[in-house]
C-alpha cells in the first residue's frame, strides 16, 4: 500500500459503478435477495414477539369497563383517562422505583467496577486466581434469585445474628431492624443486579492494553490520572452497558420490594402492576401502568445515551 502525501478520508462504501456488466447486475440482485432473506427471520421474530405484544398492551391500556360488567370483562374503547388515573394515583411508587433503581445502579457500579478492575487488571498475571474470582462472580446466576432474596430475609431476620450483632454494637437501635425497610430493598436490588453490572465492565477491562498505562506513567501521569484519562474512558462501553442492564430491570423489579420491603414506604411500580393485574383484575390499568413504565424508561435511557453514549455501542 503506497502512502499518499495527503491523507484523504477514504469513502466508506465503494461508489456504485456507473455501468455494471450483466453478470455483476445478477450478482448484485442475488446479494440483495440474500440480504432480504437474512432479515426476514429477525423481522418476523420482532413482529411476533415484540411489536404484537406491545400493540396488544397499548390497545388494552385504552379498554374500558362497561358499567355492571363482570370482573375481568373489558371492551375496546379509547379511554385515555386510564393514563391520567395511572399517573395521578401511582406517581409515588413510580418515582420510588426509579429512585431505588438509580441508587442501586450507582451502588452496583461502585462495587462492580472495583471487582471487575481487581479481576481483569490487577490480577491479570495470576490467571488461576482471576478465573476463580470470575467463577465466584458468576456463581449467583446458578440459583434462583427469588431464593437468594428469600435467603437474605432469613439471614437479616430480627432474631438473626446479623441484627443482634448490629444491635450489640449499637449501630442499630434496640428495636431496629434490617428487613422490611427501604434500605433492605435497595440493598436487595444492588445485590441481585450486581452480576449484570460487573460482567460487561469485566469484558471491557479485560481487553484493556496495560501498555497504555505504562505509557501514561512514562508521560508523568499519576496512577489516578492514568485511571481517569486512560482506563476509565476505555472501559466506558462496559460501564454503559452495565448501567443499562442494571437500571432497566431494576426499575421494573418487584420481587425485592415484595420480599424485603414493607407496605408503607417501599412499594415499587412492579408490585402495583402485579396487584392491578392479578388482585384487582383491572387489565387496562395494569397495561397503562406498564406503558408508562416503558415510556419513562425509554426517555431516561435516551437522555442517558445522548449525554454519555459511546460510539462503539450506538
Amino acid at each position, binding site marked *: 500500500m503506497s502512502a499518499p502525501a495527503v491523507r484523504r478520508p477514504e469513502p466508506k462504501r465503494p461508489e456504485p459503478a456507473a455501468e455494471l456488466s450483466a453478470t455483476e447486475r445478477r450478482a448484485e440482485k442475488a446479494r440483495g435477495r440474500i440480504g432480504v432473506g437474512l432479515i426476514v427471520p429477525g423481522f418476523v421474530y420482532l413482529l411476533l414477539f415484540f411489536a404484537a405484544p406491545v400493540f396488544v398492551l397499548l390497545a388494552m391500556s385504552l379498554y374500558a369497563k362497561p358499567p355492571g360488567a363482570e370482573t*375481568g370483562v373489558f371492551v375496546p374503547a379509547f379511554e385515555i*383517562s386510564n393514563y391520567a388515573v395511572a399517573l395521578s394515583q401511582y406517581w409515588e411508587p413510580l418515582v420510588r422505583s426509579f429512585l431505588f433503581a438509580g441508587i442501586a445502579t450507582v451502588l452496583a457500579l461502585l462495587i462492580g467496577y472495583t471487582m471487575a478492575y481487581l479481576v481483569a487488571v490487577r490480577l491479570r498475571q495470576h490467571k488461576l486466581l482471576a478465573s476463580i474470582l470470575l467463577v465466584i462472580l458468576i456463581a449467583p446466576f446458578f440459583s434462583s434469585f427469588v431464593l437468594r432474596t428469600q435467603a437474605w430475609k432469613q439471614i437479616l431476620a430480627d*432474631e438473626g445474628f446479623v441484627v443482634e450483632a448490629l444491635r450489640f454494637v449499637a449501630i442499630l437501635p434496640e428495636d431496629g431492624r434490617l428487613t422490611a425497610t427501604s434500605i433492605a430493598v435497595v440493598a436487595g436490588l444492588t445485590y441481585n443486579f450486581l452480576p449484570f453490572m460487573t460482567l460487561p465492565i469485566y469484558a471491557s477491562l479485560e481487553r484493556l492494553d496495560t501498555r497504555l498505562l505504562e505509557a501514561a506513567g512514562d508521560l508523568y501521569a499519576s496512577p489516578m490520572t492514568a485511571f481517569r484519562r486512560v482506563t476509565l474512558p476505555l472501559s466506558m462501553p462496559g460501564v454503559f452497558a452495565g448501567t443499562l442492564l442494571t437500571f432497566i430491570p431494576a426499575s421494573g423489579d418487584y420481587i425485592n420490594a415484595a420480599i424485603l420491603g414493607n407496605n408503607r414506604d417501599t412499594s415499587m411500580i412492579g408490585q402495583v402492576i402485579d396487584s392491578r393485574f392479578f388482585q384487582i383484575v383491572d387489565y387496562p390499568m395494569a397495561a397503562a401502568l406498564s406503558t408508562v413504565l416503558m415510556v419513562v424508561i425509554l426517555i431516561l435511557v435516551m437522555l442517558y445515551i445522548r449525554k454519555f453514549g459511546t460510539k462503539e455501542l450506538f
Partner: protein
Amino acid sequence: MAPQPFNRRRPSNDPRLDRLVSAQLSRRRLLGGAGGLGLAGLLAACGTSGASTGGGSSAAALTPAKDVSAEEPVVNWANWTLYLDYDEQTKKYPSLEQFMAQSGLTVNYSEDVDGNDSYYGKVQAQLARGQDIGQDIVTLTDHMVARLIRQGYTQELDHGNIPNAKNLLATLQDVDFDPGRKHSLTWQSGFAGIAWNKEKVPGGLKSISDLWNPELKGRVEVLDEKRDTIGLIMLEQGVDITGDWGADEFGNATDLLAEQIANGQIRQVRGNSYKEDLVSEDALAVIGWSGDITQLNFEEGDKWEFAIPEAGGTLWSDSMLVPIGAPHKSNAEQLMDYYYDPQVAATVAAYVNYICPVEGAREAMEGIDPTLVDNPLIFPTDEFLANVSIIRTLDPEEETEFSSMFAEAIGV
C-alpha cells in the same frame, strides 16, 4: 379517632383530571360509532377481540367439552399447597396413590393455585373461550367459585357418579352461589383468626385490637386476603359481615389498616408466606388461617397458638369444580366421590388440619388419630361455629371497588 366523613367513590380532587375524564367520556361516545368499530375490528384482527377479555357482560353460552374419560384414564387436578396428605419419605400422596390403584386412573396433581385472583387472572381468557385449561378439577375459594359459576365457566356435575356427595355436611348442602351443589363440592373449610408466638407473647391475644399493642410494633403481619383481614377488622368494629354492610364499613376498616401500616405497627401484609415470618420470628402475632398454625406447630414444635377473636372470626370454604373445557369430567367425578368417602376424608383432615366437610369423617377419625376427634378446628362444635361468620357475597362492582380500596390501604 375522630369520625371522618367517608366518600368511597373517590372523586379526584383535581378539577383538571375531572375535566379530562369527562372529555374522554364524550369522545368515547363519539367513537362509539365509526371509530369504535374500526378499532374493535383492528383489535379483532389481532386476536384481542372482546372475547379475549370475557366477551359480553353476561355469561356467554359456552358448551362443555366432550368427555373423553373412557378413552383417556386421566384426571388433572390443580390445588393449593399443603392441601393433601403427603408422605415425606416416599414423596407421594398416599390417598391419591390409593385412588390410582383402585380406579386405574392416573391423577396429575399440581399445586398450581396460590391465590384466587391470580389463578383467575391466569386462566380467565381460556375459560371465556371454553378452552381446556389443562385441569379437570380446580380447587378455589367459594367467592371465586361463585364467580366462575355465574360466568358459566363450570360444568354441571352428575351426582349419579358421585353417590358419596350425600355425605356433605348439611350446612353446606345448599349454598346461595350453587343451589343443590350442581357445580361444586366443598374440599375443606377453615377459619381466619389471630395467632401468636406463645413464648414471645406470653399473655396471648384476645382480640384484633390486641394486635395494635405498642409492644408488638413492627412484629405484626396480616393476610393479603381482603375478606379475612378486613372481615376480622370489621367484626372488631361491630359490623355484621354477613349482613348489609357497604363501602363505608369496608372503608372504616381499610382506614384502620392503613393507619396501622403507616405507624409501623404492621410489618408486612403477606399471603401464604406469613408462615415463614412466624418461623423466623420476624412476625410475633398475625392474622392467619387455622390449619396453617396447626401444621406449623406440628412441623416446628408447639410454638404458636391460634384463636378466634372475641368479636368473631371468619369462615371460608374451598370447593372443587370442573372447568368448562375439561375433557375428563366423569373421571373427575370419580375422584370427587373417592374423597367424599368418610375414611378417606378423615385421612386428609388428619394431615391438612382444616375443617372436614364430610359427614362421618369424625367417626372414621377415631381409627386414624383419636387426639384430633375433639379438635374444634377440624370438627367444630356448634358453640365454636356460633362465633364465626361467612362474609357476604360481593357483586362485581363491589369486588373491584373493595379490591382497589384494600390495595390502596396496603400500598400497592
